[in-house]
């Protein structure tokens, strides 16, 4: 048990180090964007008709702490993010970032994790089936779909669906809520309304991940299925689903769980593009806005850190699940 706690501790420290490195890189990137917050604030005042001088900018820089050395600012920012979860203010929108993001983050994360679940629910059974069955049609279809997942990127897939629904059903599937629920508080009715509209973006987000997971599951199953222990089990009279789930599937599950983090990464990559096409107002399109159209470094940095933190967290959890699932590791750790 102590060994197990030790293992968890080591994993946790490693995750935190990863996050620290990432947030340092993100902070450095934010600094590289030309212009700082003080200039932005002052420039805003300038548009209000005030005359500004160099001294004004310097005073503002002092007030915001921008005159301090680079490393000190980096560590202050990282400290605020880690220990208090505060991302500060966005100097373009002049709003608190935590306040701005709170709702949107949960929506985006919920949709991404929904997409992840969907892709694994589809990929695991289909992948196993296609590996086991000698049916060439099923096999080739699965291969084709997984290649198409790469060649038909989700932005194209989303676009096709959007175009077809608008043209042939006259109804646009864009947006996450219908009008009457947009500003309403969360309730069962609002949740159902959300689900009735969110399934399409979730499906599209999961599309590429499904194709990849399908390929992984199939390849792993193909590797395991011809091994001797499976033949031995078959010789003992175990067959059908029983055989599959108890022997080869269990072995190939490890690497599949390992790949969850990367699939989430992939889904996050699709998020902004799909969000833009489907005009969803959650985190993805906020990111596009923050970066491309207004150079809002603070907001962009916050979003990047949150996305990465989610992936690191998922990796941490899957590492522990993996350790618990593998009997060799489990016995080594739990004694």
């Amino acid at each position, binding site marked *: 048990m102590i060994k197990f706690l030790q293992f968890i501790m080591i994993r946790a420290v490693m995750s935190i*180090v*990863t*996050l620290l*490195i*990432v947030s340092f*890189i*993100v902070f450095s*990137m934010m600094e*590289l*964007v*030309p212009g700082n917050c003080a200039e932005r604030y002052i420039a805003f005042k300038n548009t209000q008709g005030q005359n500004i001088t160099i001294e004004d900018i310097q005073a503002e820089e002092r007030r915001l702490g921008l005159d301090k050395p680079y490393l000190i600012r980096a560590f202050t920012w990282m400290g605020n993010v880690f220990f208090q979860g505060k991302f500060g203010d966005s100097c373009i929108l002049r709003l608190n970032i935590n306040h701005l993001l709170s709702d949107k983050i949960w929506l985006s994360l919920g949709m991404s994790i929904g997409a992840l679940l969907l892709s694994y629910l589809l990929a695991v059974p289909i992948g196993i089936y296609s590996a086991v069955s000698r049916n060439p049609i099923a096999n080739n279809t699965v291969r084709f779909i997984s*290649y198409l997942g*790469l*060649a*038909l*990127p989700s*932005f*194209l897939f989303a*676009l096709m669906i*959007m*175009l*077809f629904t*608008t*043209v042939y059903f006259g109804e646009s599937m864009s947006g996450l809520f219908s009008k009457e629920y947009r500003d309403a508080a969360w309730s069962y009715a609002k949740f159902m309304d959300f689900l009735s509209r969110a399934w399409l973006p979730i499906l599209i987000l999961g599309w590429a991940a499904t194709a990849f997971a399908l390929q992984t599951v199939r390849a792993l199953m*193909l590797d395991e299925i*011809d091994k001797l222990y499976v033949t031995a089990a078959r010789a003992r009279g175990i067959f059908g689903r029983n055989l599959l789930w108890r022997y080869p599937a269990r072995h190939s599950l490890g690497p599949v769980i390992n790949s969850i*983090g990367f699939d989430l*990464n*992939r889904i*996050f*990559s*699709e*998020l*902004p*593009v799909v969000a*833009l*096409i489907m005009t969803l107002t959650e985190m993805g399109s906020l*990111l*596009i806005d923050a*970066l*491309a159209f207004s*150079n809002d470094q603070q907001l*962009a*940095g916050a*979003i*990047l850190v949150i*996305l*990465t933190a989610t*992936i*690191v967290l998922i*990796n941490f959890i899957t590492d522990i699940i993996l350790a618990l699932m593998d009997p060799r590791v489990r016995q080594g750790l739990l004694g």
Partner: protein
Amino acid sequence: MGFFFNKNKKSDQQLKEAYFTASQVELIRSRFKSNKTAMVAGWILTILILMGFFSEFLSPYQPTMAGRDKKYENGPPQIPKFWDENGFSFRPFIYGTKRERSIKTNFRWVVTVDREDRRYLRFFVDGWEYSYIDLEWDLPGEFFDVDVQALTFSTHLFGVDKGGIHLFGTDKSGKDIYSRTLLAIFTSLKCGVLGVFIAFVLALIIGGISGYYGGWLDSFLQMVTDAIRTVPQVPLFMALAAFLPQEWSAEAVFFVIATILGFIGWPTLARRIRTHVLSERSQDYILAAQLCGASSGHIIRRHLLPSFTSYIIIDLMITFPYMVRLETALSFIGLGLIDPVSSLGSLMQNVSKADVLLNYQWYFIPVLFFITFILAVVFVGDGLRDAADPNMIKKK
């Protein structure tokens, strides 16, 4: 009969000998050739690349604004015909078009096809000039400015006497979609190749150092590599693309985009290279070289690198479609190469309206080329990977 049998046996023996003495590259090549899908994909890819390389020769009009056809905007594709109700012709022809706008057409431009007006296709016509070597660098100082144009031609594969011929139709400003698609394939190809190359150089240095020296340096580099790998690619790309000033020229944007692609893509490659180096490092022949007093640089260059060159090339081939996809996705949302520049992403940006699906379906032709292109690269990459993996022979 016996004679033939003997001969067969002998050639069998020879085959065996050839198999055992063949180099790694020859083995991979022969295995690749036996994979039909990959071979077909390889041919398609070669054709696409050649089409891209000779895009100026193959396209009758300039793919930029300069080559636009003012009288044929949003025009449907014109497919050359050999015969119609007015008889047969050996020389393929298209019809002339007229454009009019009046109260009858609700004041919109309407293009009508005149089936009596035949315009015959001509081959190897003279058109706009293009050069294969075209360097125009505006470096500081008069003396250093480079302005070289060489291999200039003006011959094009086909064209028509009067009016224009647009195989894939035209877009809303009258640019020829066929010419743009050909150029776009090449642009995306160049962008991907440059991105993969930059990623490769970074990965080789970082992964090589990490694998060869090991120890704390390895742990540290692996940590950084892993950290970068966890950041989602597209958001990271968007953050980096935000540095691009709007007023930069198309070439500058192109190079920056390719560079960012490289900077994002290196971690996965670096990991693979580290694994290769790590497993080769402890081999006897490396030890022998070390005992002979060879320097680290010499061992890396002469012994380690050749031992896995073929695998690295295949890794690059597998990474390549991801690079192209990333560039396309970014251009598609308007953060990469934008409209007057022809890249597959910027061409696909045009299809993002419902209007297009209803009225201008030919805008989708570049999408088909994109899918074909990516699929061809993926199949070739997979074929190469299977060919390089000796364990694959047993399976299937």
